[in-house]
């Protein structure tokens, strides 16, 4: 086996997400690279939820349109996903809730015989899944022991019963990989931020980054981390300003609607030079849109959000490992250059789950910042060669630390003078140069696939894993700018050089990266766009690519 997809479906509230995660963990323990996609509507109970766990001997990060095993906790799962089944799809279903061709599991009966509560039904199905696919039961036990905190024994007992009632119809050979930590994009961002020195996280819940708040709130129970959920997003970002002014590395999390409310303070960060880091998870828009689905429609919004002109860092990680690495860097660069930073993710990335590769915690770029002058009076905005002023936090005996949203002089006192206005803008331009230089040293553009291939797929953000995979199959090159501001034009040109044909792949209707490239003198030949809230599947990418190549 090299590539196997398992769909786990049921009603919202049935714990589909956890069931899918256990399936993923089984593959992880078996030595494969799992990838889990979670699809759910915006409701709490009753609607249809499903996960697809795809496991491969190579890292993957997108789904196929073929399901090899279907784990149906209800009838909808069977009915709604028929198009994904093929002749050999193994169907395992809860026979008390669905009828289908395949192997029924009398979950209800087993539970009552084992005197187990209803929530353990999923363990039973997981057992059946393992039995049918020949996953050794000790692997199930191992995964349960590690992942199920409560009622372990009973869960195992129930799983064993499920394991026993089905017949093995496939064999999954043990793979060769070591089990890696399975984390979601939100968790990867959280871990990266922690690695980058995060002191505080402030957020108001909003899909798809609510789970980042939950994750860090959980961390704060055990570690000295300040996590606050205030009255709304305006308070969120302003608290972040206060925290950062007083020296705490702070990030906030939100999605489009909340981000709108933060734009005024992102602009303030442009003027007052207080570093704020925003994790912005895109979802299908405009407006409330499809809150639990994905999209890449906010690139230009984040590039230009807030009145006035000022440098900002925008990074769009393409997978979980990049999310970890670049979240740490974003925090660190925001502080070293005293600029706002935006980590631009989307629902696919935030809520997708894959193994975190080794190397996700590289040493951080050093936060070069000039020291405050000794002997002279401290000025928060003193002019320097690279635009970066010494940044102190109160209390500093003998120093007055003034930040200001008005145009100000070096000391931070409001000015309306035309010469100072120009100089402060020039300072911002210098800062952008410095920021650019610092990002350029961190390979802001990634290249994958066949070296010097004439056809290049150009992508950004969460479409990366899918693009990487099809490029591998088709012999294409993949170029992915991770940093989108300051836009790494030169690196991108280098990465694209020799391409005969550049095909952009984006999950939006306008081709926003294409627009950004065009503005920077890079022309893209073709754009493959999708905007129904669902991520590209491998087959869809192949199909759409074959149409244009």
């Amino acid at each position, binding site marked *: 086996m090299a590539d196997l997809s398992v769909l786990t479906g049921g009603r919202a509230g049935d714990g589909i997400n956890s069931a899918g995660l256990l399936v993923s963990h089984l593959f992880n323990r078996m030595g494969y690279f799992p990838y889990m996609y979670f699809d759910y509507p915006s409701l709490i109970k009753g609607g249809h939820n499903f996960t697809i766990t795809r496991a491969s001997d190579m890292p993957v990060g997108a789904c196929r349109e073929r399901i090899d095993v279907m784990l149906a906790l209800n009838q909808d799962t069977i009915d709604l996903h028929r198009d994904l089944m093929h002749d050999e799809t193994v169907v395992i279903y809860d026979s008390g809730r669905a009828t289908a061709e395949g192997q029924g599991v009398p979950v209800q009966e087993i539970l009552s015989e084992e005197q187990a509560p209803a929530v353990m039904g999923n363990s039973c199905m997981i057992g059946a899944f393992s039995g049918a696919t020949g996953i050794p039961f000790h692997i199930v036990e191992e995964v349960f022991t590690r992942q199920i905190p409560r009622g372990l024994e009973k869960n195992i007992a129930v799983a064993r019963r499920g394991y026993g009632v089905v017949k093995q119809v496939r064999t999954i050979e043990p793979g060769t990989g070591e089990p890696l930590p399975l984390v979601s994009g939100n968790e990867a961002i959280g871990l990266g931020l922690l690695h980058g020195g995060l002191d505080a996280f402030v957020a108001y819940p909003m899909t798809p980054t609510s789970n980042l708040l939950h994750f860090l709130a959980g961390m704060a129970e055990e570690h000295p981390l300040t996590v606050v959920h205030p*009255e709304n997003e305006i308070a969120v970002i302003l608290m972040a*300003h206060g925290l950062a002014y007083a020296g705490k590395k702070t990030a906030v999390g939100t999605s489009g609607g909340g981000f709108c409310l933060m734009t005024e303070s992102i602009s303030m960060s442009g003027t007052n030079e207080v570093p704020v880091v925003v994790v912005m998870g895109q979802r299908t828009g405009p407006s409330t849109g499809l809150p639990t689905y994905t999209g890449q429609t906010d690139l230009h919004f984040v590039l230009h959000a807030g009145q006035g002109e000022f440098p900002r860092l925008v990074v769009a990680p393409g997978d979980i490992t990049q999310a970890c690495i670049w979240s740490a860097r974003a925090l660190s660069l925001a502080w070293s250059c005293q600029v706002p930073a935006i980590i631009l993710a989307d629902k696919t990335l935030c809520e997708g789950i894959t193994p975190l590769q080794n190397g996700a915690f590289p040493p951080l770029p050093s936060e070069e910042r000039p020291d405050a002058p000794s002997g002279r009076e401290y000025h928060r905005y003193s002019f320097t060669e690279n635009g970066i002023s010494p940044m102190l936090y*109160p209390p500093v005996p003998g120093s007055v630390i003034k930040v200001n949203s008005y145009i100000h002089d070096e000391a931070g006192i409001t000015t309306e003078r035309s010469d100072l206005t120009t100089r402060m803008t020039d300072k911002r331009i210098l800062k952008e140069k410095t920021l650019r230089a610092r990002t350029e040293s961190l390979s802001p553009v990634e290249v994958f696939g066949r070296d010097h291939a004439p056809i290049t797929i150009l992508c950004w953000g969460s479409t990366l894993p899918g693009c990487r995979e099809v490029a591998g199959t088709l012999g294409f090159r993949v170029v992915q700018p991770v940093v989108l501001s300051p836009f790494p034009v030169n690196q991108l040109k280098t990465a694209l050089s020799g391409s005969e044909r550049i095909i952009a792949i984006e999950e939006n209707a306008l081709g926003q990266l294409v627009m950004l490239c065009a503005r920077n003198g890079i022309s893209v030949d073709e754009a493959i766009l999708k905007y129904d809230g669902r991520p590209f599947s491998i087959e869809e990418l192949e199909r759409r690519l074959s149409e244009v190549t």
Partner: protein
Amino acid sequence: MSRTLITDAQNTWCPGCGNFTIQFALRNAIQNLVKEGVPLETIVLVTGIGCHAKMADYLNINSFYSIHGRTIPVATGIKLANPELTVLCCTGDGDAYAEGLDHLVFAAKRNSHITVIVHNNRVYGLTTGQYTPTSPLGFRGRSTPGGTIEAPFNPLSLMLTSGAGFVARGTSRKMRELEDLISQGLRHRGFAFIDVLQVCATYFNTSEVYDRQGYALSDHDPADFEAACRKAQEWDYNRDAPIALGLFFRQEKPVFEEQFPRRSMTPVDRGKAIQAILDAKR
């Protein structure tokens, strides 16, 4: 303390503006605090945008000159970052009662340990004289040339209802008393709210009313919530009535910021914490 508390910035308040009084009262209150041993560098002022907000330019102390309506969450953030700091806001009535009212209510609810001084001139000064939530009914401002149709609300009542543990009212017509209220507010462990009836010499000169109607609270027990509510309702910011000045209510409660960790994670802590999570997710 050798440093003077006033910067060299040119002062641009109108002649006769009540902000001068507030500035001196605040300066004195800070000086007293420093005399008592609070290091000057541990004091941080947050201001909004408006005439009042120029305080950030004029006082030679740490300051965060924020945007319109947004002093309070910044102040809470600063206090969260470092509870050793004494954090106060100079905010306007447009700022705190209109644009950013929600933050005021929530700071009271949380008992965020900050002092909020509202320069309540009952008008938007810097944008040239529009009505605010505390302008009297019928106020003719530039956005309401025929007079407003909205009665004001009562900020003291609102703060009492929201859970504020320190509620006071002063006026720019009485500097000594104001200084004293600010001093008390700065010393209060928790959220302290001071509504300052400030005269706007240009757009709403209420000196005469405050002089005539204002009186110092006496025979009033600031521990008595009911009494505070009654006193607060004596004047509704609209019709003529006696205007009590002083401390209406004070009560100590658990402080928001004290319930967060004081120290930060060390790099070693971080490494360990990350490793523990990774291990659990394998």
